[in-house]
């Protein structure tokens, strides 16, 4: 019986199966690499760049790099932490992320990753983009101010729900999330809060209507333990992103 192939991540041996990415293998082995647009249930997207690691000395996205035997991967080094902090800082100024008022605060993956990489202040000048809130759906609301264009909802709706409700339009700084209807309103779609797309958003952009702040401070998903211990919002189906779902 031949031994399972493996690579080294920050000095630890990480076994992998054929076809696995560095990210997938690391998470499967219980080693956390920060990420936002990655979700093991969907094809990797490689867009947020938060998962940058050094593979044999070259900076690459862990979520799209295939694992190979004998690779030397570095993740928790200051050089990378600095890059990750910079990316998070840019994400925070590009949208309108007002943590103190946001109902997702304490159970938000974006916020938790920011804490994890040591980003405590936004640093850059805020863009303060003018974005809207779509509350046309009876049970859900989209706050575009908080969208980081990870396209997880796009992928979930297309690949799992078979509804193809979301898309990203425009390029570069003009890229934005849209709802695939002539009116662009969620209320005009067959979106349902039971959809996979309703449960994958790593920020507070897609939320249940009429609810919020129901979990007392101190008991929210990331209040006591950091994300590398707790895991991703979307993976914790029983808590549905840190809030009761009744």
């Amino acid at each position: 019986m031949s031994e399972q192939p493996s690579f080294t991540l920050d000095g630890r041996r990480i076994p992998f199966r054929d076809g696995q990415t560095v990210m997938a293998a690391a998470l499967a082995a219980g080693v956390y690499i920060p990420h936002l647009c990655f979700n093991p249930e969907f094809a990797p997207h490689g867009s947020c760049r938060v998962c940058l690691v050094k593979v044999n000395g070259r900076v690459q996205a862990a979520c799209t790099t295939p694992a190979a035997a004998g690779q030397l991967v570095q993740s928790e080094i200051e050089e990378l932490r600095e890059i990750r902090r910079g990316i998070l800082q840019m994400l925070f100024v590009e949208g309108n992320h007002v943590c103190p008022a946001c109902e997702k605060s304490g159970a938000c993956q974006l916020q938790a990753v920011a804490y994890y990489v040591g980003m405590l202040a936004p640093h850059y000048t805020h863009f303060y983009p003018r974005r809207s809130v779509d509350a046309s759906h009876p049970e859900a609301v989209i706050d575009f101010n908080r969208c980081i264009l990870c396209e997880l909802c796009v992928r979930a709706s297309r690949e799992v729900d078979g509804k193809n409700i979301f898309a990203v339009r425009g390029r570069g700084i003009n890229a934005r999330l849209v709802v695939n209807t002539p009116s662009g309103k969620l209320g005009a779609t067959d979106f349902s809060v039971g959809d996979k797309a309703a449960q994958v958003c790593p920020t507070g952009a897609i939320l249940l209507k009429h609810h919020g702040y129901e979990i007392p401070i101190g008991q929210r998903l990331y209040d006591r333990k950091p994300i590398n211990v707790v895991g991703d919002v979307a993976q914790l189906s029983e808590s549905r992103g840190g809030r009761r779902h009744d």
Partner: protein
Amino acid sequence: MSTLETAARPEYLCRIAIDPLSRVEGHGKVTLLVDRDHHIRQARLHIVEFRGFEKFIQGRPYWEVPVLVQRLCGICPVSHHLAAAKAVDQLVGAREIPPTAEKMRRLMHYGQTLQSHAVHFFHLASPDFLFDFDHEAAYRNIGGVMADYPDVARQGVLLRKYGQEVIRVTAGKRIHGSGTVPGGVNKALTLQERNYLLADLDLMIQWGRNILKLMKAAYAANPGYFTYFATIRSNYLSLIRADGALDLYHGGLRAKNDKGEILFDHLDYRRYAQVLREQVKPWSYMKFPFINSLGPERGWYRVGPLARIDNCDFIATPLAEEERREFMALGGGEPIHVTLAYHWARMIELLHVTEAIKELLLDPDLFGDELAARGEMAREGIGVIEAPRGTLFHHYRINEDGLIEKANLIVSTTNNNQAMNESIRQVAERYLDGKELTEPLLNQIEVAVRAYDPCLSCATHALGRMPLYVELVSEDSGSVVDCLVRDADGTVRNSV
């Protein structure tokens, strides 16, 4: 190219924005209009705060508002949180909220009132009347209080801290917590939390009584000054419990005129717009509310501790009630109009909330498990609460999607707007000597303003430190005759 244009390692630098306005904005600006004989014709307090918040929350989901509005004011976030929550209750059709929810909110509110009153009294206001006006300026700060009343100053710090702990336990954090949800709260009290809060409470009640002793001693030492300084006759507005008791969290609206006659009583506050109007004046960003039936000239009123004690028939906790009786006896049947008595009334309330917190903590309802109620959605919600500084109105309308369409807030300080102007006029008239502004006059204006405990950033400085910009304008020519500016470090300069 200059190396200053592009830094080599920007990630290690910190950005500082210099806002040219901020230098002026922290100052309270007062314009005094004088006639040929140097009589004050008019005093205007220009307030530049509270701009645009109503616009800012437009388009936000309604359930977010109680948390969002806490950012409105760094001075009493909990009051805004609760006033908005009460409005949101109506939006979600919660006619009655479960007893556990109501009592948890009350507890939070009393905690806020305690900490707010304690901060104001011990950090800002006590030197205003503990020491005589001609006293050494250096003495007029908290250090002076410490020296003369060492225990009281320490007790003030601990009372404040206790209030903050009540907030933390009920709202999750000392500031910007999130205790309420539509129709209720997100947690009940645990036995452990109850015991924790109960442990020091008798001491707090005792200290509340001590402060009143001190308050009365200060009054007795200088009744003349105390009674006439900045004093004006006015109407009074507050919430009132159904049985006429003082109630800081909920009730109907009661207004009295300067003789103590009832103008309206137990009015459902959702009908506030029928009895109150707001006047806009071209020189002020802040509106001037008035009682509709009396018109803008005679209809302005005062809110806050003095108004509440003047308005209520009794206080439901025994020690505070005893103090109220003693206080009201000074009015000989009329409301107390003494502006410095705001401080006294505030301390009666402080004692009341310590007693009320104890009553609540012994109430098993706090441990219930029914936390929120809901009914049929409505498009309009109005929440009113007695914030530490006075009656606070939050009024929201939502669209069919549940987003805020329109908001109208009347904050406590706005309710006292005209009254503060009147008090400044009274002080200036009495103390303006000739046509020159002097530092003592600046101090007096400051003491008058601070009695109202306005939530203005300029008012959060201790005596001799309130950033003020006072100008004297000639009625004839309209030109500025004199101008005195004091910055937050206490330096005074003439800037005419």
